[in-house]
């Protein structure tokens, strides 16, 4: 189908974009890569009266590592740029590994990190990565600038902490310890499809070889990406190994809140979620030792 009529504006600054959204009000939407919004418009599920295109705002784009080794990614940075960027492979290998799982090359050539977070599909990869890394989402809006931690950003299916007229400007990932063990894995029907379930995992070791910090997150297993804290807690203070990973996976599975749909049943998702946690922890450990 074809989208209904709308006004179109292509501002070249954030200030101008904010002024335009304020002027055009309730039914105006920001357009980023268009890879979620335009399909919804073609289906007429979304019928914005105006589109404020963010593609011409250079300030919203780019990848930078600051003096404290934090990784900053502008909201309008395309997922394909993240995939091809050599410094991201070092600055956050987990993010780098997750990105090729997003859709297909043609979609990644347009889709943006900010668009994926704002859209907040519960099966999307990037929301889980920002969550498991404890990244901060920088927002600019009519009330000025604010920063929201990933833990507080995802509120429900396609629902976030973004309020009317607000733009995600940048995502800031905390410093990635060079020795960190990590893995990402997902199960989908075909390459590029949304995951039925996916897991992102990392852990750090202290001087005595015990796990001192850990992160586990799931996609496709709830209304939002989920942090699997029961599994994380099992890992803390223990030495990595198959037994500990199995126990952590069993505990992590109790944090999953899967639903049944045409893609998979809740039982299947829970089962696969547990297997993937175990597999990710094992892969993480084997890769780093």
């Amino acid at each position, binding site marked *: 189908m074809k989208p209904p009529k709308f006004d179109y504006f292509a501002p070249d600054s954030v200030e101008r974009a904010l002024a335009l959204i304020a002027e055009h009000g309730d039914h105006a939407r920001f357009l980023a890569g268009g890879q979620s919004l*335009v399909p919804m418009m073609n289906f007429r599920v979304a019928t914005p009266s105006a589109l404020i295109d963010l593609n011409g705002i250079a300030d919203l784009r780019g990848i930078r590592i600051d003096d404290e080794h934090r990784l900053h990614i502008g909201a309008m940075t395309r997922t394909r740029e993240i995939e091809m960027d050599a410094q991201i492979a070092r600055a956050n290998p987990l993010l780098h590994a997750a990105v090729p799982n997003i859709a*297909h090359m043609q979609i990644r050539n347009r889709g943006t990190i900010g668009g994926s977070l704002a859209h907040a599909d519960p099966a999307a990869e990037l929301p889980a990565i920002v969550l498991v890394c404890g990244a901060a989402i920088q927002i600019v809006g009519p009330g000025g600038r604010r920063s929201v931690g990933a833990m507080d950003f995802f509120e429900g299916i396609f629902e976030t902490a973004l309020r009317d007229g607000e733009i995600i400007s940048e995502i800031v990932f905390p410093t990635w310890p060079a020795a960190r063990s990590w893995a990402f894995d997902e199960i989908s029907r075909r390459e590029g499809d949304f995951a039925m379930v996916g897991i992102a995992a990392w852990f750090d070791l202290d001087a005595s070889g015990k796990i001192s910090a850990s992160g586990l997150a799931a996609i496709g297993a709830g209304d939002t990406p989920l942090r699997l804290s029961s599994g994380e807690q099992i890992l803390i203070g223990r030495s990595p190994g198959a037994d500990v990973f199995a126990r952590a996976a069993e505990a992590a599975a109790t944090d999953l809140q899967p639903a049944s749909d045409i893609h998979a049943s809740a039982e299947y998702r829970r089962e696969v979620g547990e297997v993937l946690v175990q597999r990710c922890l094992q892969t993480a450990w084997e890769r780093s030792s």
Partner: protein
Amino acid sequence: MTADRRLTLHVNGITHSCEVEPRMTLADCLREKLDLTGTHLGCEHGVCGACTVIVDGAAVRSCLMFAVQARDSMITTVEGLAASDTLSDLQQAFHDHFALQCGFCTPGFLTTAEAFLSENPSPTRGEVQSAISGNICRCTGYVPIIDAIVDTAKRRLESGK
């Protein structure tokens, strides 16, 4: 502002001028305003890949981009792959490997493969498989398509092209 806008588009090395509504997708503009009907529309929601064109070097879905967004870009459609009436090497390889039957999906595969090979001139078979994962073919089957792309990459490397 919903009214038609005068637009300049650079397609296959030619600069076109046309009037479009903001809601006109790039795919519809190419087909209906510029009469470049080689770009096909299958699903119009990003799933099938038939509408793939190359915008500033990158393969993208022309059903998910509005024509007004392409105003400063260099666009290549399937019509622009061959320099003259002779098929390009990639097109010839599709022919040789029987990589098409009805041909509906073919423009999308060709543009995807062309953009992919310019980024990755010596791909593995697996990388080719991933690169075309976003293109659906309902009748040929993917093996001959992968063969054609792998073969083109090999020939280009051999001839230093």
